[in-house]
């Protein structure tokens, strides 16, 4: 038993520095290195009997093992908290939504009636509203965010790049309620007095989609403000994947005679498409759960928007606005929570997708962001 270990030690030493780095996980309960040394020393001095070695190992191991095992289990308890928290979130949503799930089944998704007095509930209006706001936000945010990311990664002068990147990241942290207040004070009057009449008088003459009464509140204002909110997130994550494009790729493009713009747009940008998709998906998830700013700006009227100037309602703003009245009626509150459950499921799917894409690209380093506010 001692002989093979002896050989192993020798062979490891003889390989010297060319040994591949040890990447075994820390928890790997290796036999104590001290012990191996002791054993080796014993093996060199005098051939030990089998029993001496066994006793030696058992003594040190039983001491260590007991405390290590306790430690192992104690730590695992910490992980169980996370499982418990997830179970609480999912459990509360499913259990409290159950009366509605049971009563309406799948038809809940495409029913557009929402009548608490007659006890008929359907998600369609709110689903459409949510996707309208998210869609407007993303159409506005994605091109700007990606181009800004290109500016941050390639075009910004070197003395400026640290400053502007930090600025962008810090602005991502402004709370949602501040965006909402800004929207009411600034965006709504701007929309009402300038943008919406202009839209109605130009595009609105040909397409009903752009016409409507200029109210200031509605899916357009909400979408724009959410878009502003999402830009820093998408831009920062895209920038992070742009700077990971290998230098060789860049230099090869230059060596083939491309100009800087050709390198950036035709070589670098296509190389990070998975990263861009990932960041857009994260932005989508963020916009989806956005609550307070939307609640203040969308007009909160349960109707399916047909024009970009219409008012509407999103799932999250409905919950924040009416949930405290809805709890009086079990079916009403269950229907609202089922809406929340739909939002939760979409958010989880979207975030998992974005996370997987970006993790694959960045090798495990990903800053978390909490959706909504």
């Amino acid at each position, binding site marked *: 038993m001692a002989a093979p270990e002896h050989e192993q030690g020798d062979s490891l030493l003889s390989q010297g520095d060319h040994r591949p780095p*040890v*990447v075994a*996980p*820390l*928890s790997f309960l*290796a036999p*104590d290195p001290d012990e191996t040394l002791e054993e080796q020393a014993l093996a060199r001095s005098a051939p030990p009997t089998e029993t001496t070695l066994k006793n030696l190992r058992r003594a040190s191991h039983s001491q*260590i093992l007991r405390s290590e095992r306790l430690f192992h289990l104690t*730590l*695992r*308890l*910490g*992980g169980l*908290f*996370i499982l418990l*928290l*997830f179970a*609480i*979130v999912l459990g*509360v*949503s499913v259990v*409290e939504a159950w009366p509605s799930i049971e009563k309406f089944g799948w038809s809940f998704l495409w029913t557009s009636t929402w009548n608490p007095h007659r006890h008929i509930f359907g998600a369609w209006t709110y689903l459409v509203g949510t996707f309208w706001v998210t869609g407007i936000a993303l159409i506005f945010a994605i*091109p700007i965010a990606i181009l800004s990311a*290109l*500016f941050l990664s390639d075009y910004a002068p070197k003395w400026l790049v640290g400053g502007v990147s*930090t600025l*962008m990241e*810090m602005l991502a*942290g*402004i*709370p*949602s*309620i*501040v965006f*909402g*207040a*800004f929207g009411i*004070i600034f965006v709504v009057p701007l929309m009402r007095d300038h943008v919406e009449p202009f839209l109605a008088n130009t595009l609105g003459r040909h397409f009903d989609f752009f016409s409507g009464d200029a109210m200031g509140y509605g899916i357009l204002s909400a979408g724009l403000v959410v878009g502003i909110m999402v830009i820093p997130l998408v*831009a920062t994550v895209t920038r992070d994947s742009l700077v990971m494009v290998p230098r060789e790729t*860049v230099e090869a493009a230059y060596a083939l005679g491309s*100009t*800087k*713009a*050709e390198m950036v*747009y035709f070589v670098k940008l296509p190389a990070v498409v998975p990263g861009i998709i990932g960041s857009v998906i994260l932005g989508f998830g963020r916009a989806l*759960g956005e*609550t*307070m700013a939307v609640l*203040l700006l969308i007009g909160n009227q349960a109707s399916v928007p047909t024009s970009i100037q219409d008012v509407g309602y999103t799932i999250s703003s409905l919950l924040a606005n009416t949930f*405290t009245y809805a*709890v009086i009626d079990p079916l009403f509150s269950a229907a609202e929570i089922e809406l*929340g459950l739909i939002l*939760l499921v979409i958010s*989880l799917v979207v*975030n*998992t997708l974005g*996370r997987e894409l970006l993790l694959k690209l960045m090798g495990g380093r990903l800053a978390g*962001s*909490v*959706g909504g506010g």
Partner: protein
Amino acid sequence: MAEARLPEKGLSYYRQIRNIVLGSITGLAFLVAVTPLLAIIYVAYDRGKEALSLSFVTTMPSGFPVGIEGGILNGIAGSLILIVLASLLSVPVGVWAGLYLWDQSHTRLAGVTRLLSDLLLGVPSVIWGVVGFYVFSTNTGWGLHWGFSGLAAGLTLGFIMIPIVTRVTEQALRDVPRSYIEGALALGATRFQVMRDLAIPAAITGIGTGILLGVLNVLGQTAPLVFTNYYNTGIPHSLVGSNGSVGDLAMQIFIYIHEPSKALHVKAMAAALVLTVIVLLLDMGIRLLSWGSRKYARKG
């Protein structure tokens, strides 16, 4: 990335012009992206400056409707109470879970835990509000029956913080050089000793950063408070029960901006500026902290 300026003579005009145009577009887009964000701070200052003074942050709201005179001390105090409560729950739990994920990172249970912790990061804040309502606030059915109260809201915010603290703690521990750990293990330290005497001291700045990042993320949260706390114009004597609601800066902005009153809108914008400044200062502090620790790590 250092790049020599290329000689662009001899290129066709089309390519030269395209080079300039495509390049300038990115700069323009950056301006379009940053201007509204800076405009928010400017508009908050511009519309709120009438109300801004030192006494704005040191006096309680008064007048009718409440808040039309006086300041936002109830909101600041309430936000502080909520952050302390949230940290009391999330720091021990989050750090504990982070230690677990780091130490037993290869096990299947840890893989599942990590996935769920990342999924929790993406849970929308209204859902956290609903969960907090049923676990802490509701007075019917199961749950803790604490009513709309500071404790309910604080612990709900704590729920939101837990996955953030977990994630950053694990990352900070992973940044401790592997050779330190292996060296200690080779000297015969147990894993508990390695964690207590080596990994945690080495990662303490990172863990602190994670806690502050969590605080930053819950500081402006409004939606969960609508479900669990709502608002109080004063400072409560108790944090549980029907009189247990606390004031909150974000909630205060929401309520003021919802009122059809010019004077309250001014107060709301001033409060929004205060909240934004607090958030940006905290953000800057986190950056300095992690920048300092990175510099230290490079020296070491």
